[in-house]
């Protein structure tokens, strides 16, 4: 197994005044099942300590490490090196300002998320001594929505977002829908008001890149479709 693969990594350091460039590294395949993150760690620890990237949980649940590998957005920690074509081209998430190397500025992404009021909004007080009731069927509506880890893989893969940075983007919309369909929530009106905007749901052209990109196998397009239909239903 003394094989190695080439990582062609996007490098950019704002302090060096140098244009972005790609540096090739040889990564040794030490064991089967190595992930792209293991490769990046190997480079950082053994070859070039200046490489910067984000990571935390290393098991695909925290959403730190969305990057673009061979032209596709993914989480480095759950992408097997052996499933990729050599050389492996590693880039930061597209369309976001690059802070350094693979680290991008996600401020805009987070602000879009805050904008859709991603928290339970209730009008009446909850029962004093027990949980609000929600049937398993009602709870099932949240499946495929609440699992979002805010990794930004979807939004940064969306050509509509590239073209129009004011677009809310699939992740924010999916999270909005997560609350709108929650049987305990009373904030649908407020949220739909915000989303029913030229930069809201209507900028989605059902391109489906977001669905291809989502590492948690969620389906933002479907959620956006629900939002559109709901708004249309309420209007006409």
């Amino acid at each position, binding site marked *: 197994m003394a094989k190695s693969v080439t990582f062609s990594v996007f490098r950019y350091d704002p302090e060096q005044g140098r244009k972005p460039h790609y540096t090739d590294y040889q990564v040794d395949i030490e064991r089967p099942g190595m992930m792209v993150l293991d490769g990046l760690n190997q480079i950082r620890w053994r070859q070039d300590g200046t490489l910067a990237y984000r990571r935390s949980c290393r098991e695909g649940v925290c959403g730190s490490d969305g990057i673009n590998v061979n032209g596709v957005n993914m989480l480095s920690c759950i992408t097997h090196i052996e499933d990729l074509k050599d050389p492996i081209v590693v880039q930061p998430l597209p369309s976001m300002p690059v802070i350094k190397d693979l680290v991008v500025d996600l401020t805009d992404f987070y*602000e879009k998320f805050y*904008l859709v009021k991603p928290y339970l909004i209730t009008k009446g007080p909850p029962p004093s001594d027990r949980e609000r009731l929600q049937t398993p069927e009602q709870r099932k509506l949240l499946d495929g929505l609440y699992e979002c880890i805010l990794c930004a893989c979807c939004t940064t893969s969306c050509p*509509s977002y590239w*073209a*129009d940075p*004011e677009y*809310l983007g699939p992740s924010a919309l999916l999270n909005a829908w997560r609350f709108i369909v929650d049987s305990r929530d009373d904030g649908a009106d407020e949220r739909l008001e*915000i989303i*029913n*905007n*030229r*930069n*809201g*749901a*209507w*900028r989605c*052209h059902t391109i489906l890149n977001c669905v291809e990109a989502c590492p948690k196998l969620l389906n933002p397009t479907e959620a956006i479709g629900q939002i*559109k239909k709901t*708004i*249309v239903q309420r*209007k*006409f």
Partner: protein
Amino acid sequence: MLAKYFGSGRSGAFDWYFQRVSGVGLLVTLFLHFFVLHYATEGPLTYAKVMARLSSPAWKAIDITFLVFAIYHAMNGFKLIIDDYVHGTGLRAILIGALWVLAIAFLGLGLLTIVSL
């Protein structure tokens, strides 16, 4: 930054919905139009053949529906594209305004043609 998301005029719900409605409408009328024109009519198109068909009121009605759908759909489609790529509010207003003028002009022209035949 919130301000951007509020009160910027038309929401887009109407545009979106009727893009679909007109699209499906078009699918039907366009099919008829295309089929009749290119397959159902025998041999080379002549003035007489076209006029004969067009002067029947039923055909006029169909063609008018087709025209309205098509103009709306195309104009709205172009608006969608302008919305995507033009971010300056002023420029966008001008372009979309121009689009409206163009669309109405061609609608008039088309109607005139159909009715006057």
